[in-house]
């Protein structure tokens, strides 16, 4: 066993790029483990835990890039380090060959890029607020992808943004659409008449993907971050966004996606919604939301319904909710899978890349199945489990599940071995910035888990939804097909998938609740 180190002094690369390098190295012949990290104290700890903290790595500083490989042989290690070197310098070479020199600061970027109007900021949390503030001071709108920004900073930043008439989307804003440009992790959707204000990335992605499937498109989609509607922030960006969309001739209808606002904030937001002068669909997912219509306000309880309501309103037809797109087909499939279960298989295990999708699934499962455990808050003794694999504590030192399926594959394997588990429920999120083949990344694990179950006299039902469009780089059709060939039942939305899972695990009583009575 050979352990070798490569140090590149004063050579910074972002965490996503470095994880890509590490993944490439791990795939090399004879390589047991590889790490590519900046030499910060936290990263050195990670390396130590992985048994990769060599003396050189330990001596590296926070601005030094550290590559460590553990290999079967000297040759394999040499090859890996050479590959690392070429990967790391490739980008620089490409840029320099093109004759352009990349600026080092926002200010020198503005000197090079005349008329810059948006700063897309995704630097590590501790530095993000300062960069955002700089950008606002310079009169740029801001999309703040970074998380780990303090509430205090968020309040101050949004106050500054509102003062200047600028956007501050975020913090933790993963998706937005401005002037038809998809920003961050975003699906390829057409330009259209629907304006959106979203406190969630994957929530927004689900709604716009379904709008696109229905032939509609997005005028503007403004991300406001998950805490915007809390009391301290007071819905500052939500209100500003609503004003902007209200006055935008390209927006005929507004959809608001998020969680229910703090009580003190609710009245202000609702008042603004009512005076918008345009129909509004409100999808604030929570436990006590009552759907219905109140003047120009249409409240729905799922992301799918938000899209459906919007489509119906624009087409001036009535909107009716359905449990499933094809009720009879769904009933048949649910029954098939339920009958194949072995005794004792009672649980739904949800493994999600999208936090809001996980939450939506939880809200759908709870009334049907009772208490649901997992990491969405509150430890509950329950056989059912919903895991948001993108949660902070699960993504420390590893890539987000939208980019890297390693953790999800491990959890799928675990579910396959668990005799309690009846249904595996997953989301697959497509779009710009996401992995190249998310379905393909989990398909082997899904197949193996089902095979494992079968070998032990059980049947593991796999239920999935794909958030995406046919225009996405991954291709919606191709991704659905891949999942189906791996044995998954793919439904048209996250909500339908959650209901299907509940029906399979919960028995006839649940299925009847879902299917008896079409409109809710």
């Amino acid at each position, binding site marked *: 066993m050979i352990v070798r180190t490569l140090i590149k002094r004063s050579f*910074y*690369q*972002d*965490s*996503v*790029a470095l994880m890509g390098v590490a993944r490439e190295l791990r795939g090399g012949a004879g390589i047991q483990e590889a790490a590519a990290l900046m030499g*910060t104290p936290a990263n050195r700890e990670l390396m130590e835990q992985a048994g990769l903290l060599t003396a050189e790595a330990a001596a590296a*500083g*926070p*601005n030094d890039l550290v590559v460590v490989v553990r290999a079967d042989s000297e040759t394999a290690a040499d090859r890996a380090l050479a590959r690392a070197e070429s990967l790391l310098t490739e*980008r620089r070479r490409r840029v320099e060959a093109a004759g352009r020199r*990349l*600026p*080092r*600061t*926002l200010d020198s*970027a503005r000197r*090079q*890029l005349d*008329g*810059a*109007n*948006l*700063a*897309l*900021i*995704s*630097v*590590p949390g*501790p*530095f993000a*607020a*300062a*960069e955002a*503030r700089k*950008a606002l*001071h310079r009169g*740029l*709108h801001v999309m703040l*992808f*970074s998380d780990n920004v303090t509430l205090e900073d968020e309040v101050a930043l949004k106050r500054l943004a509102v003062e200047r*008439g*600028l*956007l501050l989307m975020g913090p933790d804003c993963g998706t937005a659409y*401005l*002037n038809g*440009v*998809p*920003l*961050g992790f975003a699906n390829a959707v057409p330009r259209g008449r629907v304006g959106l204000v979203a406190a969630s990335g994957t929530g927004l992605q689900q709604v716009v993907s379904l709008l696109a499937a229905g032939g509609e498109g997005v005028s*503007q989609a403004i991300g406001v971050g998950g805490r915007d509607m809390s009391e301290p922030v007071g819905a500052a960006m939500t209100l*500003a*966004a609503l*004003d*902007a969309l209200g*006055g*935008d001739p*390209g927006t005929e209808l507004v959809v608001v996606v998020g969680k229910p606002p703090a009580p003190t904030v609710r009245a202000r937001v609702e008042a603004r919604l009512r005076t918008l002068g345009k129909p509004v669909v409100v999808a604030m997912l929570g436990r006590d939301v009552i759907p219905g219509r109140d003047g120009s306000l249409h409240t729905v309880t799922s992301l799918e319904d938000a899209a459906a309501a919007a489509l119906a309103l624009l087409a001036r037809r009535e909107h009716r909710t359905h449990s499933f797109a094809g009720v009879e087909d769904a009933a048949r499939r649910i029954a098939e899978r339920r009958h194949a279960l072995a005794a004792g298989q009672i649980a739904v295990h949800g493994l999600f890349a999208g936090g809001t999708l996980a939450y939506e699934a939880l809200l759908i499962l709870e009334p049907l199945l009772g208490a649901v455990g997992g990491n969405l808050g509150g430890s509950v003794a329950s056989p059912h489990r919903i895991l948001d694999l993108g949660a902070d504590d699960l993504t420390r030192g590893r890539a987000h599940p939208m980019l890297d399926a390693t953790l999800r594959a491990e959890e799928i394997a675990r579910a396959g071995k668990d005799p309690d588990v009846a249904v595996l429920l997953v989301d697959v999120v497509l779009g*710009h*910035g996401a992995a190249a083949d998310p379905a393909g990344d989990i398909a082997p694990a899904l197949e193996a888990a089902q095979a494992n179950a079968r070998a032990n006299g059980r049947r593991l039902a796999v239920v999935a939804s794909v958030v995406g469009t046919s225009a996405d780089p991954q291709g919606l059709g191709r991704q659905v097909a891949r999942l189906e060939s791996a044995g998954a039942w793919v439904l048209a939305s996250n909500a339908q998938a959650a209901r299907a899972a509940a029906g399979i695990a919960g028995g006839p009583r649940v299925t009847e609740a879902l299917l008896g009575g079409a409109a809710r």
Partner: protein
Amino acid sequence: MAEIRDLFGLELRVVNVGLESFAAVLDSLGVTVLHVQWVPPAGGDPERARRLALLDDEDGT
């Protein structure tokens, strides 16, 4: 007085500060984007970085 809506009619011209993959995607879509070779300010020293943030242009004597 500037307004958010003022942005809606303009061509988006993006400065990307952080993950290079975002700039690469925008570039591939034909969006005008310039990637900043960002490094942690003050070599990552949090105290000095904090001071730098407070000494931005708009702050003064």
